């Protein structure tokens, strides 16, 4: 599941509440029949947004210390650490001091630390920030594999394309309140309305007169016509007037990225979502 929201929406605070680092002013946290303070933290893996490692210690030492804090058997942790270091192209780095690692390598070690103790729930706060495309792909593969093996994953990220690609469910918050929650397909069906992109010389007012048009954005000969959600795309295309100047035309759904921007900037969609959840 992905947790999304603009900066300051409360994503990291929600995560910190789940991890017991901060305590909520109201409400309660439950995790497989456990509530608040009784939640077994060793069953949760956590990669925070604000992250680092002790500098002057060896990679294996810090991995084993963090596994020990999670009550994970050390011999098992050592073997898993070696396997993961190999998997993340860090073979032979176990005796290297953390401050000798590159930033990317450090992030890989942090990721390994969060999954070493075989958590039932893995919380990843901006796991891809600062990673090169190759490392991003490696992280994605590992996250998918963990999910396939039954680990529940809560992912917070601003990279919408990655969220769209990886998450089954979506939880979007704004100013500490839930705005959207549901399966990715349902959310897209519900909120990702169709938009028609037209290249051609057309007056904005004429485009706004078209049926079921929510709003029009225009820049020179490039127009984006946002449509209400209940349209039938084929029928809508059929009723376009002959006078329309069309050099190019594309009809597709608005992306998660656009939904996010609309919510973050408080555009019309936000009002619509508000109405839907009112």
């Amino acid at each position: 599941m992905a947790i999304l929201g603009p900066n300051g929406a409360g994503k990291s605070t929600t995560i910190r509440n789940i991890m017991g680092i901060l305590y909520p002013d109201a409400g309660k946290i439950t995790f497989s029949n456990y509530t608040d303070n009784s939640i077994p933290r060793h069953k949760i893996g956590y990669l925070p947004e604000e992250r680092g490692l002790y500098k002057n210690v060896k990679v294996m030492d810090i991995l084993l210390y963090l596994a020990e804090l999670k009550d994970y058997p050390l011999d098992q942790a050592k073997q898993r650490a070696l396997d993961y270091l190999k998997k993340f192209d860090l073979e032979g780095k176990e005796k290297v001091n953390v401050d000798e690692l590159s930033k990317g390598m450090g992030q890989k070690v942090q990721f390994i630390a969060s999954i070493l103790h075989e958590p039932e729930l893995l919380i990843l706060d901006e796991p891809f920030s600062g990673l090169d495309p190759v490392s991003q792909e490696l992280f994605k593969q590992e996250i998918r594999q963990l999910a396939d093996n039954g680990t529940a994953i809560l992912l917070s990220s601003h990279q919408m394309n990655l969220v769209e690609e990886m998450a089954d469910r979506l939880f979007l918050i704004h100013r500490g309140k839930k705005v959207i929650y549901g399966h990715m397909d349902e959310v897209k069906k519900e909120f990702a309305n169709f938009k028609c992109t037209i290249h051609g010389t057309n007056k904005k007012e004429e485009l706004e007169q078209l049926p079921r048009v929510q709003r029009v954005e225009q820049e020179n000969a490039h127009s984006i016509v946002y449509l209400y959600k209940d349209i039938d795309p084929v029928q809508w295309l059929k009723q376009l007037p002959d006078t329309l100047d069309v050099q190019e035309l594309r009809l597709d759904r608005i992306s998660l990225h656009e939904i996010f921007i609309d919510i973050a900037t408080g555009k019309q969609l936000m009002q619509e979502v508000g109405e839907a959840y009112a």
Partner: protein
Amino acid sequence: MKHMRNSLKVAKWEIKRNLRNKTFIIGMFLTPLFIIGFMFLGELIGGDDEETEMTTVFIHDELGVFSEIEQTVAASNLSWQVMQTDVTEEEANKEVKNTEQTAYLFIDEESLTKGTIPAYTSEEMDASFMNQAQILSSPIQAWQLKELGLSNDQLAVVSRGIQIADVSANDETDTKDAKETAEESEIASLERIVPGAFAGFIMLSIVFTGMAIFQSASQEKKDKIAEIILSSLTPNDLMQGKIIGYFVLGIVQSIVSLVIVLPVLSWRLDIAFLDYLFVPELALYLMIAISGYLLFASIFVGVGATMTDMTTAGNFQGMVMMLPFLPFIFIGPVLSDPSGFMAQLGTYIPFTAPGVLLLRLSNLEEWPWLEIIISLAILIISIWIFVKLAGKIFKVGILMYGKNATPGEIWKWIRM
């Protein structure tokens, strides 16, 4: 139970991390070497070199007390070579201008009448010479008393002086001579001073090592690992783990220092320290020392968590770091009067109580048990309060990035 287990994991980590840190290891061995170095430096400055520091003292003796003077000087530790002379004061005055470490003393009827013995000394003569020369007043006064017609027995009584010694009802002290009494008194003193100094050393050692908690408390913030650690344990577990860890490191530092320093000290002072160390009083001394550490450690860990790192320590944090040095201002008053007002005051102030108590108890033959109990009660309550306050500060401070907390903010966290 789980919390204690978590704290012990943190403690183990802090110990392991520091014992593998080259800076810590070097510091651990350098500390005792510095102590030894300062000991020898003190002796060098104080003057132990017989070749260069030997003072030649010429005595112009018209009274016939030279042999008594020779015996007095020989019995003392003075590096004096005493010789008789018959030069005049004028010649002596010329002579000292061309010599070093030389003095001429003129002892005659006239000088005794005036009450002042003229001394001519070299220009570079030690400033302490005139004080050392006062030792000669004893044989000269003895000569004066003899001149007054006192018998040898009367002289012995007058010159022995008076010593006040504690005599128990069933003790056989009255049958012992003064020498044995003095020896017993010295042993009793050593049995107080040696364990007291030992506990003081342990306390200073663990408190100074514990000052590293200041840095360690902000380490998780600096390395941005605070959230990862706090996702596995509570801030209190982390804080207590650090306190326990640095206590053990302080003990390790003390043991290393003592193993290196004690044999050197025993050799130089010719005292078998271990014979005087393991006395029942040691338990109380150590309890005071540990209380002192716990008090300062809880303050350090709390305030340390309010800083981004050591280099950004503000005035407030700097003042807190000076707290362990506070008992030093009580050293003078306590040594001059271990039961005086200042000594008692220092006993009841939590920050000075451990140091002042150790100093007082090492200097008092009769321990003021009521004051000790009140002082320990104040210490224990203070530790409890400071641990609670530190916990509140640490909990918020450890997650505050980018800036040092102001005293106002810290006050707000305490009230939360």
